[in-house]
């Protein structure tokens, strides 16, 4: 079964075990098309793992996870699930952009080559087309003058903006951000958040693991607070941040706010 067309991500009781270790204990939530959801919670609460499950970097152990109505990582035939081939999984991932905490830019390629690599190799776009689009995307994140720079010559904020452009080059329908500003100097956080804000305004569906309360309050449509592998509280971010209902949320927010 697949969700109605307004749903981009639908998670039904998703569990993830690493051996005997239970990291996710039944996560159920939905992200609607064009919505920004922020995942909040102490480290080790499973937010990053859940994010990685959405594009099948981790395989879920139980439950069902749908992106755009399509089951992630499995084919359903009758009432049996069949493991997906690597090729099919790669095809699913193409439409889901991911931005990492430590950028993970390709250090042997220039900023522009980082952006054009996947469109050329995966989508088989002609080089000229990919380059034109790559330059456009670098301009969009404010880095048109850094196209020929190698990642090591860029600041953390610039690297993360290149990483966002790299993910956008695949024209994703969903963007996942895994603590995109946690590895940045405080003065560089703003430039990355600005790019993300504009992306949200343009209607991109985003799931963001973050500790930036300001961003959550200002940009997010929904906020999910996770702890120890379960969703503790969820709701409107302004509401949850101002009046947390659950004691665990209160305790966490009192420490970070």
């Amino acid at each position, binding site marked *: 079964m697949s969700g109605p067309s307004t749903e981009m991500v639908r998670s039904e009781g998703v569990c993830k075990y690493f051996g005997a270790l239970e990291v996710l204990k039944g996560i159920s939530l939905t992200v609607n098309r064009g919505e920004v959801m922020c995942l909040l919670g102490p480290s080790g609460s499973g937010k990053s793992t859940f994010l990685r499950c959405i594009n099948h970097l981790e395989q879920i152990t139980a439950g069902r996870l749908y992106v755009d109505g399509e089951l992630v990582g499995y084919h359903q035939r009758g009432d049996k699930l069949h493991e997906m081939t690597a090729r099919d999984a*790669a095809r699913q991932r193409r439409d889901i952009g991911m931005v990492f905490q430590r950028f993970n830019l390709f250090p042997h390629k220039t900023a522009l080559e980082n952006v054009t690599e996947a469109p050329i190799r995966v989508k088989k776009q002609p080089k000229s087309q990919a380059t034109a689009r790559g330059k456009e995307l670098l301009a969009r994140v404010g880095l048109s003058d850094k196209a020929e720079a190698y990642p090591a010559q860029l600041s953390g904020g610039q690297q993360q903006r290149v990483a966002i452009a790299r993910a956008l080059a695949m024209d994703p329908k969903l963007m996942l951000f895994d603590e995109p500003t946690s590895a940045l100097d405080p003065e560089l956080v703003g430039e990355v958040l600005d790019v993300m804000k504009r992306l949200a305004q343009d209607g991109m569906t985003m799931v963001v693991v973050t500790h930036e309360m300001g961003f959550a309050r200002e940009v997010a449509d929904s906020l999910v607070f996770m702890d120890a592998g379960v969703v503790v509280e969820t709701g409107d971010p302004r509401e949850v941040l101002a009046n947390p209902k659950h004691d665990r949320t209160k305790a966490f927010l009192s420490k970070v706010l």
Partner: protein
Amino acid sequence: MSERIAAGRAQGAAGPELIQAVPLRRPGRYLAAAVILIAMFLFVWGVATNSAYGWGEFGKYLFDQRISQAAGITLLLTAFAMLGAIVLGVILAVMRLSPNPVLKSVSWMFLWFFRGTPVYVQLVFWGLLATIYKRIDLGVPFVRQFAHIDTSTFFSVFWLAVIGLALNESAYMAEIVRAGISSVDEGQQEAATALGMSWGQSMFRIVLPQAMRVIIPPTGNELISMLKTTSLVTAVPYSFDLYTRARDISAETFNPIPLLLVASAWYLFFTSVLMVGQFYLERYFARGASRKMSAKQLQALADAQGGGHV
């Protein structure tokens, strides 16, 4: 460097006065250099005047046609064997790191065998190939054979030597490549995967090019080592390589020392050329590895800065 800065200053407004410090004196360096120079002179003098080295013979055979031919053959042996070893080594390393358990164990067993037995013994075995397998049948085993290869005529001794050297070396190359691949941050493979690249694409486009920085220096080592290991092909027995040829000639002249020097000179010449090649190769694969900018990039930045001030 400082001239360029000074030139930049001259164009723009008068900047702060540049430091013109008196360089530190280093008498220890001069002393050490003098001692070493004297010792070297004494050694060279001794070598030049000692008749046992037979420098006249050396000059006579250095460019002897048989020797230069043998040098070329040694180069060919090295090139073919190393090429095969690198290709096979990369395949073995990728197999070893692949998620496929069958490929993994095949690679491990290959390594276990070819790294575990002496290369000399392996070369002797390759020489005995025609004795062990008189002919090789191609087709469906036990059912039908389409073609027959007569081993003694199909494989020349030269190619047996190449195969022997290449298979042995590939086991070492596989470990070098594996070390290189393991040195690349896991996040690289992850980022490539998240972009929808296949395992092979991320390996050959993203991970291996970065691994090259770690792979090249030990591979240069292996190449140089291979150049000299070719002197073992006499075990096959193949006798047209540099060392075996030089030894054969000295068997006629009854004076081994000058011909050993001739062979050494050629080996040294080749390794020197290889070291130069390695330098350029390393520079190519180092791109993006350092925050340090090239002279061209620095100049572009300085120009941009100058432009901003004027």
